[in-house]
């Protein structure tokens, strides 16, 4: 297929439509307004439904309600907007609803600012809501990767019956890159998927069977522990099968830079410059943040690795928590972090590696 030069928000919105998304609700918030603006005209063109909710709370509940009937449903917001959705995200995890969520991160805490950040790492991967539920979290580093993940996420969400959370940021939403868009899923395929959900577990009128109740919890008299044990089995299956990570020039690496999402773009630039200067640097870039690709860090040759630089756009750092668990003190770790709209500087990453290398020498 031909490549198109597209803006991030519009590219991922179009990828969702092509994946079969037929319902979107959202509330305006910078830096992701081009998602609802695009879908407001695009969804009706394909027979889908767009509603601008009266709040983030209403919007996520609309998306949740649409998913009860098997319609592929998407929500998009940014940081503080995601906080408002927290309760219903918990319901969606508990009720096992295959919704897809976009978060274009901005600064925080609180309203923060509208600059790009990576300050929602804990919220996205560890504490979306009360009760300790989990869902798949992916963080793409380019528009092509974002488009591919979005396209796939609707299938993954349905196969696991789990929400899928795509953690992006203000840069990804606003930048333009050339992307190859995937094929449009045929209408009969989308209709078949919806019908299958209605038949297997969704709502649609009981049609002669016993009525179903879907809810985010369990008041049926069966101990809630039984539901949580079932959910835990699913989380373990995700951890076994759904980790994704890019390893770049790590085979002979003495210096590892690790970063995720858009932050990894700057990290890769630093690695390339270090390599050009003969310093054996490599990049570990988790693509799935939950489940975290611990095995990618285990696969490093720690007889060669002398140090790790962990880079992220969050003060205090959050991603570092998983990096430390993954590296398991097999190498010293330095942290480079910025926050609140201050983006990572690849020269700073490079300097940090050079300093570590200098000390080593």
């Amino acid at each position, binding site marked *: 297929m031909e490549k198109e030069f597209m803006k991030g928000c519009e590219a991922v919105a179009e990828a969702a439509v092509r994946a079969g998304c037929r319902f979107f609700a959202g509330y305006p918030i910078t830096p992701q307004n081009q998602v609802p603006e695009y879908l407001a005209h695009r969804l009706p063109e394909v027979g889908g439904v767009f509603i601008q909710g009266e709040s983030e709370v209403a919007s996520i509940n609309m998306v949740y*309600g649409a998913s009860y009937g098997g319609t592929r449903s998407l929500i998009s917001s940014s940081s503080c907007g995601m906080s408002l959705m927290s309760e219903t995200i918990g319901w969606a995890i508990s009720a096992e609803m295959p919704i897809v969520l976009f978060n274009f991160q901005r600064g925080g805490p609180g309203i923060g600012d509208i600059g790009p950040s990576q300050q929602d790492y804990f919220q996205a991967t560890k504490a979306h809501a009360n009760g300790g539920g989990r869902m798949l979290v992916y963080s793409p580093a380019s528009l092509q990767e974002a488009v591919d993940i979005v396209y796939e996420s609707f299938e993954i969400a349905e196969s696991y019956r789990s929400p899928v959370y795509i953690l992006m940021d203000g840069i990804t939403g606003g930048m333009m890159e050339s992307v190859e868009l995937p094929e449009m899923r045929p209408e009969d395929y989308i209709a078949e998927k919806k019908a299958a959900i209605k038949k297997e577990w969704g*709502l649609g*009128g009981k049609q002669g069977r*016993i009525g*179903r109740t*879907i809810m985010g919890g369990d008041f049926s008299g069966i101990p809630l522990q039984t539901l949580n044990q079932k959910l835990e089995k699913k989380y373990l299956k995700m951890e076994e099968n759904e980790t994704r990570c890019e390893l770049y020039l790590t085979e002979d690496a003495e210096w590892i830079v690790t970063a995720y999402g858009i932050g990894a773009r700057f990290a890769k630039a630093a690695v390339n410059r270090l390599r050009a200067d003969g310093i054996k640097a490599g990049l570990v870039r988790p693509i799935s943040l939950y489940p975290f690709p611990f095995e990618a860090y285990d696969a490093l040759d720690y007889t060669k690795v002398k140090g790790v630089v962990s880079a992220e756009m969050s003060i205090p750092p959050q991603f570092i928590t998983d990096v430390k668990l993954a590296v398991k003190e097999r190498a010293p770790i330095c942290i480079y972090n910025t926050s609140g709209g201050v983006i990572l500087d690849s020269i700073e990453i490079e300097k940090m590696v050079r300093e570590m290398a200098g000390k080593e020498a």
Partner: protein
Amino acid sequence: MKTVYKKPACLGVRKRNSFCPGCMHSIASRLVAEVLEEMDLVDNSVMIAGIGCGGNASFGYIDMDVGKAPHGRACALASAYKRCNPDELVFTYQGDGDLAAIGFAETMHAANRGENFSVIFINNALYGMTGGQLAPTTLEGMVTTTSPAGRGNNGEGYPMNVCELINCFKAPAYIARGTCTDPKNVRKTKEYIRKAFQNQLDGKGFSIVEIVSACPSDWHMSPKQCIDFINEKMLPEYPLGEFRSR
């Protein structure tokens, strides 16, 4: 012998009535079940149930597909569900705390958009399931566990009249308030529910039926005293009838 009345076949199949004696949820649920069955809609309907007695106790009592909503959000879920499944009958079943306090925004905006689903709204002037706290619909001077001096004496404001508020919007198609204190009113309320569902089938848009109801447990009254309280205190604040019928 001729059968003049029987319990709807969809009632009490999955779960038995778990309402307190004298609670009007049992009558309201039965009316919904009767109308669904008489209109042959049970198999093709989805209830979006709220939180509290209005949702917890009613779902499963009518054997039908039910999607439970987070507290207050039923009208948001129903808006989306109905738009994505226009051939199914969709209604919410909500209490006053759920619909008029935490869910006020969702209710008002769904009404103002003219969403084509129906709302069954049980107004018993307090939060029943959590033990009788102040609701937006609590009457002036009424003592609840969180308005011990009586509503209005500690900055609680005045009762909120949901039908009257919704009647300010252009979009809604049908707005009615009934009660279940006697057979005449039960029959009238049933007709309101039937009209609300028929309006939806006819694509007319948002319909709401408020049912002024009793909560004997939290009102600390006998069922008979509750009926007197509704007639003497509730109905002057919440007058019955059709506010709008398009």
